[in-house]
């Protein structure tokens, strides 16, 4: 499989301190990669590097064969930030119509993404009056507009109820089957079971990288939470 993302020796400094210490990673095309790690481990910074909004100190980040942040990638990469970056004073439909115009997606695409995130009945609601989980889904729907080849999702399932979480993971799996590459961050280890590959991040370094089965075998446990703990201990 070709790599959708290739990260080489990536270092990021912020406020004098180094946040990412030489990350190497690849993300294969048409798969779901889970970026797991405790809060503060550098997940968001790494994702910001992939979409090209983060100033990097060293190393390289290639996305779909181009340097991250290349103007040609702006219609090919969808990005969902941790807190929903949508207009809370507009309705769901007004938000999606605007972003559709910006990415050059046709009008019908708004219906498609609303269906995909299960928000069809809330289209005319003002986003600010929706629940946190619904706002997250509006933000996710925005990233699905057009035909993104890579989706960078920062904790998209946090705070959602279990049924919704399952539905979203099914949606992610469907997208991956359609050839979209996804990188999904989470600080909940249980989410690892939905990913084909895992990238475990701790204190700005990659702790481990592999399929969930591989990593569990390496750690000698079936429990995902336990696996992370044991890998930390092994590294120390």
């Amino acid at each position: 499989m070709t790599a959708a993302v290739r990260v080489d020796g990536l270092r990021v400094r912020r406020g004098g301190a180094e946040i990412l210490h030489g990350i190497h990673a690849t993300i294969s095309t048409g798969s779901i990669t889970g970026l797991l790690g405790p809060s503060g481990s550098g997940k968001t910074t790494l994702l910001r590097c992939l979409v090209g909004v983060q100033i990097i100190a060293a190393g390289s980040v290639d996305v779909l064969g181009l340097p991250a942040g290349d103007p040609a990638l702006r219609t090919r990469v969808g990005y969902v930030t941790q807190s929903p970056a949508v207009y809370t004073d507009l309705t769901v439909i007004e938000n999606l119509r605007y972003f559709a115009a910006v990415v050059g997606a046709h009008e019908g695409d708004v219906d498609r993404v609303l269906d995909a995130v299960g928000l069809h009945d809330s289209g005319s609601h003002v986003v600010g009056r929706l629940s946190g989980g619904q706002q997250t889904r509006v933000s996710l729907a925005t990233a699905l507009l057009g035909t993104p080849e890579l989706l960078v999702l920062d904790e998209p399932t946090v705070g959602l109820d279990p049924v919704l979480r399952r539905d979203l993971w099914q949606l992610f799996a469907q997208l991956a089957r359609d050839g979209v590459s996804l990188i999904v961050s989470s600080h909940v280890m249980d989410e690892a079971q939905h990913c084909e590959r895992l990238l475990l991040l701790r204190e700005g370094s990659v702790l481990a990288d592999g399929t969930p089965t591989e990593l569990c075998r390496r750690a000698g446990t079936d429990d995902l939470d336990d696996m992370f703990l044991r890998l930390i201990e092994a590294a120390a």
Partner: protein
Amino acid sequence: MNARITLATARRVLNQLRRDPRTVALLFVVPAVLLSLLRWMLANQRANFDHIGAPVLAIFPFVAMFVVTSVATLRERTTGTLERLLTMPIHKLDLLLGYAIAFGAVAVVQVGISASLALGPLGLRVAGAGWLLFVVGVLDALLGMALGLFLSAFARTEFQAVQFMPAVVFPQLLLCGLLTPRHSMDAALRTISDLLPLTYAIDAMQRVTRATGVGHGIVIDLVVVAATTVAALLLGAATLRRRSG
């Protein structure tokens, strides 16, 4: 640059305003109420009202647009929608022109209401044409908007953005020639006054008050106001960074 995205942005900003009817009411009603108050205060001094009516008419939209746009764009920065937009195929100027068109439309209505009220029921008498009063008023409002857009880049919180009003607008109000005639100012103050854009905005209004027709002086004033507006928009675009630390 892309006209479709620019217009979609203008429509989006207007939609956001529409969802905040209280702000819209304040934008349209407050200048009218203040002008009426001024007329009442000067009930027995018609000449004074005629003298300062037009400049004051320009100040209210200038100040209101400055505050509203600086808070609106700051909100775009702090809620993450700006960062999201900048990962998308939007040109920075598409975004700023979208804002300019939306708030320009608001300024047209705002100045239209104030100018009609002033020239009609309040009986403001100016030597120049009513349409010129309106054009100068709208250009002054657009200047306030562009300065607000640009300066919002230097505010991290809405508190700071609102404080830019006294910091940036008040010195211009003091030195624009409305409180003290510019020719009686100290040379140093006069030089500073020459460098402040509101000076030209107010001077244009004073010329509409005094003279008929479109004279040489008013054209220079309006060119300075328009050029400063464009420069502030371009500087505003330069403050939008696709990459940050």
